[in-house]
């Protein structure tokens, strides 16, 4: 199926130390079998200080030592993927629900409602899903559109979140401002909220901090910063199912746990109330805060590279 791309070039200006008056391209991708779109913004290649400085309030040991990292140019979703968008895949009856297949498969039905009554249709972020499920959504998009999407690497995610800033939050160090940019424990009213209702970061990305935590591609490792030697486009490839990594904190977290550098390691007990063994490879019964947004490399990989990517990252 050919995809229709509406190219909307937005221009907005902001100040960072490095740049002034940059206008990034934005486009709305038309999602398969629907009139729904997903807005993406093209970020230029660049470098940034990844991790947090020793003195940052609330800092955990796994956030450093901070180091200079560079990333290639990529498109990133301006918003977290919503239930409405995800449902195009989840409810696509042309896709098998056989979880052991090598092909694109879609999630089995949820045993109970894992949005826990917080809201679904109308712009609420999809939640309670495993990293693999988010990747399968990307694979489905690729199958339907011929365009390659994936989760951001941890480095890409943090680069996008910081948006040229070097402070605790992308708006500075003052946690009192957080309520204008992020849904977190103090302002969320018992759950996640519709995406894009608060102020975006300087690069036009909404809800990077708070609301739902966002899956990235990397395997979690508390020593990533010391063991990773690559400084350009680093990614820690998975060697086991656990633990994976959520970025940005969530609606459940205190202000000091929704910082740009925060890293949340997934835990087996995020699925503890699944009564079956084997447990669902799709959902999480006890991680209502787990969601995602997607990226698209500016330079598309080859078909072989894409196939190898999905094979490596989506294991049954």
């Amino acid at each position, binding site marked *: 199926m050919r995809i229709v791309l509406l190219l909307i070039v937005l221009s907005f200006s902001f100040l960072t130390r490095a740049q002034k008056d940059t206008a990034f391209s934005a486009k709305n991708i038309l999602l398969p079998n629907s009139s729904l779109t997903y807005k993406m913004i093209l970020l230029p290649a660049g470098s940034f200080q990844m991790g947090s400085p020793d003195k940052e309030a609330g800092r955990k040991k796994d956030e450093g030592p901070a180091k200079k990292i560079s990333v290639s140019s990529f498109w990133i979703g301006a918003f977290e993927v919503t239930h409405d968008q995800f449902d195009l895949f989840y409810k696509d009856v042309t896709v098998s629900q056989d979880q052991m297949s090598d092909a694109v498969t879609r999630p089995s039905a949820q045993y109970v*409602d894992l949005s826990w009554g917080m809201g679904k249709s109308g712009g609420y972020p999809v939640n309670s899903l495993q990293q693999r499920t988010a990747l399968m959504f990307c694979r489905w998009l690729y199958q339907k559109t011929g365009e390659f999407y994936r989760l951001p690497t941890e480095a890409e995610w943090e680069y996008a979140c910081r948006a040229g800033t070097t402070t605790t939050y992308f708006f500075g160090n003052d946690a009192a401002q957080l309520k204008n940019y992020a849904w977190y424990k103090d302002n969320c009213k018992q759950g996640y909220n519709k995406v894009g209702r608060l102020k975006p970061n300087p690069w036009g990305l909404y809800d990077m901090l708070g609301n739902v935590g966002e899956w990235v591609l990397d395997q979690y490792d508390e020593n990533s910063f010391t063991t990773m030697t690559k400084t350009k486009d680093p990614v820690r490839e998975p060697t086991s199912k656990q633990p994976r990594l959520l970025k940005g904190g969530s609606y459940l977290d205190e202000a000091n746990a929704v910082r740009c550098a925060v890293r949340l390691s997934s835990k087996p*007990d995020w699925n503890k*109330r699944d009564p079956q063994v084997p*447990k669902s490879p799709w959902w999480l019964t006890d991680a209502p805060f787990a969601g995602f947004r997607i990226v698209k490399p500016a330079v598309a990989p080859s078909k072989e590279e894409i196939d190898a990517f999905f094979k490596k990252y989506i294991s049954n």
Partner: protein
Amino acid sequence: MSTRRQFVKQGSLLTSGLLAAPFMSRANFFSGSDDVIKVALIGCGGRGTGAAMQALMSGQNVKLVAMADAFRDRLNDCYKSLTADDLSDWTGKPGNLKDRVQVPEENKFTGFDAYKKAIPLADVVILTTPPGFRPIHFQEAIAMGKHVFMEKPVAVDPVGIRKVLEAAALAKQKKLNVVVGLQRHYQYSYRELFNNKKLIGDIVAAQAWWNNDGVWVNKRQYGQTEMEYQMRNWYYFNWLCGDHINEQHIHNIDVVNWFKGSYPVKAQGMGGREVRKGKDHGEIFDHHYVEFQYADGSILNSQCRHIPGTMSKVDELLIGTKGSIRCGQATIQDHAGKTLFAFDRQKENNPYQTEHDELFAAIAKGEYKFADAENGAKSTMTAIMGRMATYSGQVIEWDKALECGLDLSPKVYDWNAEPPVLPDEDGRYTIARPGLTKYF
């Protein structure tokens, strides 16, 4: 068998799942010479595998010594899961349980009578087959003097309920611990809500929901006998499942019974099949709405639906004279909306694990602490009464339903025997029709 009314008087003690006075005796708790607690697993599907794993993770010296299932492939899959090299994905702890799974080939039993061979080998039995078999399995386990963990629901018809109630009385006499997998009784948030229920005064009404997209379907395969097909696709046949009001929605109905401290005296309701119209959808409905009435006149409005694309909700709401208990949120509010109690979600447990932790701790100490079977049977009966109401459109009274003799079980358990319901020439089964279906 105690009458329902006698039971209600003692309700709070028994339905809380905890008995006051532990009974101490080690003599008849162990068949081995050491302190190993031997477990037999009867029903090796996904839930059985999960329950076995939880028993092995209970912190006591538990060994799985025997396994039984109607199907060898299900047993094999379960054994493979339990003896995997790395279970950290499921258990949350590194390592595996291989040393706790000691089931030699001769202790793997398959077929309809497999349970009879596995039960004698253990101290504790886990009953996790489809619910249609639960009454006979539970009877056998208690007759053989075993402690029991059994999944809900515990029957599919009133005749099965009576068997479970009889065996429950015998279990009490024999001081055998019985835990039923109505796991909200073992979930900290529910226990805390229950402990604070006085905040809402008398419960005058309740709502319960299990609305979602539905469950798996196992299509008919070439070469299957009718009995094998129904066993593989068991969710859709009442002699095995009892319909989804019984198989799933029992959880929410049971919460209301628990908090009320009693069981409804009658039910009326409506239901049907809107989307379950295929040949592999057997005979069950896809929605039920039941008005259950308790002896004091208060009403439980219960709804369950298995229709994709509709509002999903699995929850319970109890309304009292002074406020309401919102189970899913784990909060108690007054009628002005002010929060009177909120459970700290950071303190939530894994109730599926706690069921086994508490059961096996009691067994290891030689305590008699758990007698869940009677409440399990009566909450199951509540759901069955609801199904009888939606199938018939009649008002169904508790005492009459319990004594009506409805028995859905097959005459003969054999792969070549006729199941109790058979398809017509088109491969379709008779569906209940309100107004035509009658129980009395």
